[in-house]
């Protein structure tokens, strides 16, 4: 073998070895790429290319090495046998490598599609994440706004001094605010009275609820209207009611929102003012009449007494004169009562212990016949200090109240007299309550009217309460009465703590 031939053989063998080495090193790298990212189709494709290249390199280069080896060992004839197989395998591997390479475009398009899909998925995921985060933030904001709104309206519901009531069209109560419970007599009483429907305290008459619901359905609302209701304690109260019909949660049934204002106090004040107006008118009229009658009565009484003095022996004439004198005196008492009612006669006020005054009245009346089976209870407030009052006239007030209480009870019963210092209003309250027959609603409006009486003719003049009313008013006070037929009556005399500058003539309205 020449030197040149040897060099060529060496180059051939080295080249073949390098070819195989690079092919398998490439295959190793491709496999590392695949291991790193098993789902990357391009890496898988490169691995297949490298496998084909490795087979190709082996088929081509190994054969070179074998051929050179055969030449070296002097067995070149063997190549005649191996050569065709080598060529065939080499041709086959060429085709395989070429064929695998042709799949690149298809593989690449799949890879691009996967990448595109992946990007779309990531973008979508990002959008979803963003939406999710925003959604949470939005939900948080909406929830906060809803909570604020709920709190605001809850406060309106809770703090309102008027009753807010929600019911269905059947009258079943869904919601009632604290003021509602208060107006109805307190939560405990409402629960005890089993108030579950509006009809339990309102529109209690037969078909009243149906009528009111018909009106609300037709007009969708109800303007301010006055009604009477009976609370859980059975007390009758005047209310101002308005209502609105709103759709129910499922829009398949209506709900009624009621706004109810307790106007009982307002009604009572209006009644008291009306009564005061009436009594003021009567007082002015009575004062005028009393003045006009008082003088002639004085003259008649004076002349009757002069004529009676001239009668030394009893005779029919003297008896007639006595009868005149007696009836004139009765008239004088009535006139004096009328003047007291009209507050024309001035009061002689000085500091008096109200408790001692009441005790004197109790002693005075207790010795009267008929009080044997009547129990008089006293409950004095020790904080009550002496008041600037006309002892005689205030005694007359309590005598009237106790006698009236006794009359209302009949032979047997209990009278309770209590005092109470009302510091905020700067007055003393004296309550005279009895267990008598009570006062009807009809009579309640007239009890302070002069000459109104429920007693038989000749038993009372009907001036007791009106005179008492006038005396108390003359002291800057007031008389209040609470009563129901059959449940006794409570008269409350309110007297001011501080001295009152009275108006001798004229009435306060």
């Amino acid at each position, binding site marked *: 073998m020449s030197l040149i031939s040897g060099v060529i053989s060496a180059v051939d063998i080295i080249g073949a070895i390098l070819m195989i080495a690079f092919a398998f090193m*490439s295959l190793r790298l491709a496999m590392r790429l695949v291991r*790193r990212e098993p789902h990357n189709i391009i890496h898988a494709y490169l691995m297949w290319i490298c496998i084909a290249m490795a087979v190709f390199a082996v088929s081509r280069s190994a054969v070179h090495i074998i051929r050179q080896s055969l030449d070296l060992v002097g067995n070149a004839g063997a190549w005649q046998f191996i050569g065709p197989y080598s060529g065939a395998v080499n041709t086959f591997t060429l085709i395989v490598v070429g064929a695998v390479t042709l799949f690149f475009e298809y593989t690449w398009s799949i890879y691009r599609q996967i990448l595109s899909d992946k990007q779309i998925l990531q973008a979508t995921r990002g959008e979803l994440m963003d939406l999710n985060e925003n959604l949470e933030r939005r939900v948080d904001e909406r929830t906060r706004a809803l909570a604020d709104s709920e709190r605001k309206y809850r406060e309106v519901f809770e703090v309102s001094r008027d009753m807010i009531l929600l019911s269905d069209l059947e009258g079943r109560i869904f919601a009632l605010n604290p003021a509602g419970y208060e107006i109805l007599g307190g939560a405990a009483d409402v629960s005890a009275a089993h108030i579950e429907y509006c009809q339990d305290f309102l529109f209690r008459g037969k078909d009243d609820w149906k009528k009111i619901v018909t009106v609300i359905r037709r007009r969708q609302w109800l303007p301010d209207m006055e009604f009477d209701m009976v609370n859980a304690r059975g007390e009758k109260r005047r209310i101002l009611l308005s209502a609105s019909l709103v759709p129910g949660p499922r829009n398949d049934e209506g709900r009624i929102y009621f706004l109810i204002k307790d106007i009982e106090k307002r009604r009572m004040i209006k009644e008291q003012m009306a009564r005061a107006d009436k009594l003021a008118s009567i007082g002015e009229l009575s004062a005028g009449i009393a003045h006009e009658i008082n003088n002639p009565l004085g003259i008649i009484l004076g002349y009757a007494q002069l004529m009676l003095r001239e009668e030394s022996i009893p005779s029919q004439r003297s008896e007639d004169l006595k009868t005149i004198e007696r009836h004139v005196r009765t008239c004088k008492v009535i006139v004096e009562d009328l003047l007291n009612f009209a507050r024309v006669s001035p009061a002689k006020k000085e500091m008096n212990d109200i408790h001692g005054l009441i005790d004197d009245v109790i002693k005075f009346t207790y010795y009267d016949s008929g009080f044997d089976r009547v129990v008089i209870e006293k409950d004095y407030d020790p904080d009550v200090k002496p008041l600037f009052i006309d002892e005689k006239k205030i005694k007359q007030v309590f005598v009237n109240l106790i006698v009236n209480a006794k009359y209302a009870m009949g032979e047997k019963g209990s009278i309770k007299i209590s005092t109470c210092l009302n510091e905020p209003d700067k007055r003393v309250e004296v309550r005279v309550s009895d267990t008598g027959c009570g006062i009807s609603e009809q009579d309640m409006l007239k009890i302070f009217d002069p000459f109104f009486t429920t007693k038989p003719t000749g038993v009372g003049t009907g001036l007791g309460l009106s005179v008492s009313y006038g005396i108390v008013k003359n002291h800057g006070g007031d008389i209040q009465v609470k009563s129901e037929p059959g449940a006794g009556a409570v008269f409350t005399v309110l007297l001011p703590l501080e001295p009152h500058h009275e108006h001798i003539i004229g009435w306060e309205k």
Partner: protein
Amino acid sequence: MVILLFFVLIFMPDAAIATQGHRGIEGLYVHLIAHVFFIFSMVLFVYWIQKGRLIEAAGWKYIRYSAYFFILWNIDCIVVHLLESHLYKIAGASLGILILPVSNAAWINGIYYFMKMDHFFCVPAMAFLFLGLKRLLEEELS
């Protein structure tokens, strides 16, 4: 009628040509076609690499170089095979498929001698493939 025609055709004695015989230089033709096919696939490969802008990555750039060298290698191989055929024919062998208009020129022997060393093309081609994959792996790792 059809059956009769079938039997007439089957039993008429003549040369059977249905299965083609393979003799002579068919193997060389197949081999050359394989090289052409390899070139075709590599050209397409380069085209796709450029079209897909893969050459922006260094790894694919090396792989493209690899394809170029494989193309050159295939051309080299085709030329060598044709020259071999020419030289065989001149030598009186029967496998020649190409007869150049020159006869036994010394420069043909020189070209043939040089181009027989195809390692100068295929080894760099495989080396660039290795380098390309190496860079791709490095890029993945980074």
